[in-house]
């Protein structure tokens, strides 16, 4: 037995030597969610080779985390998903001694993230954003009048108003845990309520505008908004800005606005975390620390137009971005943001089922 262990140790020494030469880090992040040169810079600085994969739904990531052996070292789940996955034992605690850049983080926002990860033990904020309304300024003005000010969820939730926009296309996120609370909020209910009646009421409102919605999808709207194929999208802040940016690039005359409606909106955090069975946690820590560097985070925000939680990076972020209330909301708007509720299994099922009813009528 002893001999075997010695042999095993010797083998791992060799393996370690080999790894120092050619370490790899497997990252799994949202699509279009990083600056063009971030990975390059990280590789140059650390000599670690990065394998970078992308996904575009929390569900897909979650399936991999819950199955285990995903092979990823760093993943970026959204806060409410993260909470559940922590409960399932999918992540390892961060070794904060390896993350000196944590000092750069905004304590208020980190505090907000503690709703999902008490003590920030497992994760740190990558980017954050809101779920609001993106719209084609001219198309909406054409249908609702030049004077109409887009500042309310009534744009999509009032059947009469959304009915006027149906012909040019309304899209909603295919995300029941974001859409139903938004509807509840519009009805004056607590968006974080898990009461079945409240959820039913939200779903019922959605059903009344169902026929005005062209589709429910969580990424398609970026292109469609940019091309003028749709004119209103309930979407994630950064994605709407990406559409805005693409429309500008294309010079196709499409002007896009993003608004956090006066009634309030969901605030969410995308969190960097390390799977419990990550092959290379050491490199994972290095990467997380690297991202928390002020300049690197600023670069990412400047590229993806999502807000970060890195206080030190603020001076380095494009003033156009920091001053945009759609990205960095005003204090007044901030007060009306709500955090996502994490449902238990039964509520999850209720919400999914309601959502199916909203979408299909069955």
């Amino acid at each position: 037995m002893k001999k075997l262990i010695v042999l095993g140790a010797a083998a791992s020494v060799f393996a370690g030597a080999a790894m120092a030469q050619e370490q790899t880090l497997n990252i799994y992040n949202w699509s279009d969610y990083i600056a063009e040169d971030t990975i390059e810079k990280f590789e140059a600085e650390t000599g670690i080779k990065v394998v970078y994969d992308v996904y575009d739904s929390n569900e897909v990531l979650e399936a991999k985390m819950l199955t285990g052996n995903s092979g990823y070292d760093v993943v970026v789940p959204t806060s409410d998903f993260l909470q559940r996955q922590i409960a399932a034992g999918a992540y390892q605690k961060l070794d904060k001694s390896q993350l000196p850049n944590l000092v750069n983080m905004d304590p208020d926002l980190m505090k907000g993230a503690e709703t999902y990860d008490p003590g920030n033990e497992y994760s740190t904020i990558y980017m954050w954003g809101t779920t609001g309304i993106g719209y084609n300024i001219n198309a909406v003005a054409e249908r609702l009048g030049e004077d109409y000010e887009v500042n309310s969820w009534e744009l999509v939730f009032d059947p009469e108003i959304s009915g006027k926009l149906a012909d040019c296309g309304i899209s909603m996120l295919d995300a029941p845990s974001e859409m139903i609370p938004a509807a509840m909020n519009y009805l004056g209910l607590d968006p974080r309520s898990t009461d079945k009646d409240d959820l039913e009421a939200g779903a019922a409102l959605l059903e009344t505008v169902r026929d005005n919605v062209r589709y429910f999808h969580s990424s398609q709207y970026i292109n469609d908004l940019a091309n003028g194929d749709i004119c209103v999208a309930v979407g994630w802040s950064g994605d709407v800005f990406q559409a805005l940016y693409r429309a500008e690039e294309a010079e196709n005359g499409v002007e896009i606005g993003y608004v956090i409606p006066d009634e309030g909106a969901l605030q969410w955090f995308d969190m960097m975390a390390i799977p419990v069975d990550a092959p290379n946690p050491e490199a994972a820590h290095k990467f997380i620390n690297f991202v928390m560097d002020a300049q690197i985070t600023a670069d990412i925000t400047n590229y993806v137009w999502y807000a970060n939680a890195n206080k030190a990076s603020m001076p380095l972020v494009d003033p156009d971005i920091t001053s945009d209330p759609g990205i960095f909301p005003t204090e007044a708007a901030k007060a009306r943001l709500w955090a996502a509720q994490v449902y238990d299994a039964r509520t999850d099922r209720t919400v999914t089922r309601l959502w199916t009813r909203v979408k299909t009528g069955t």
Partner: protein
Amino acid sequence: MNGAVEKTGSSPFVATLKRLLARTGLSGRTLVIAIPVLWLLIFFLAPFLVVAKISLSEAAIARPPYLPLWEWSEGMLIISLNFANYQYLLDDALYYLSYLSSLKISALSTLFALLIGYPVAYMIARAPDNTRNLLLMLVILPFWTSFLLRVYAWIGILKGNGVINNFLMSIGIIDSPIVMMQTDFAVYVGIVYTYLPFMILPLYANLVKLDESLLEAASDLGARPLTTFLTITLPLSMPGIVAGSMLVFIPAVGEFVIPALLGGPDTLMIGRVLWNEFFSNRDWPVASAVAIAMLVVLVVPVMILQRSQDEKEEAAS
């Protein structure tokens, strides 16, 4: 006869193999049957059993997200089977409606694929030799590009400012774009397009064997071309029609990607319901129960069909 036996017997390899087989009590025949059986065991039965197992457990916030089916506790094996997942499928009309809708979409798609595929297969089978190979290549060609890419190409064709709408508007047939994306129509287009080769190839394989003199005989006996087709070509190509239809119908029932990308929110298909159970509800047991139920829904009619065909053959002999 004798010579042939001696010839094979003289190869030392074959002889050794035979001796080995004889010792293990296996004949070459058994071996020939064993290989596909083994294949089915590994690639069909094993995954099926895993899914069946999960369908009988209970969802949990864990990794993996369900409770184990059996447990050792104080020297006792405790097996807990949870049939509630199946009960659940019966309680909510959603599942039953989704199955029905999937079957309807698949059946109609199969019909359209048949209506398009049959003339194409017929034409290819009757084409001159060199053209025929070219046409077959064209049928298979789409497989050389990614399936997703081809579905995305359809988005480009069908969408509001896509190829079709732009063309129709430029020649002034319509003023505003026809909404084709996110409709059942787009789903039918996607499924028929994707699975068409699976309809054409077996039909072609059947029709190319069709003896032309049979058609001449029918014509000679007074059958007009349409009658000849209905009384000779069509019945004789039945095996091809059945094979092609199965190859289209079965995968179409469980199709997820096409309705997800091309379909509207109200396109109800069991593949999507399954996706929801698995990803949105994280309820792997119910998802597995949906999958098993889908298999039953598919396998039972296929087996009935198979049986009726076997009986027909038996009756014939």
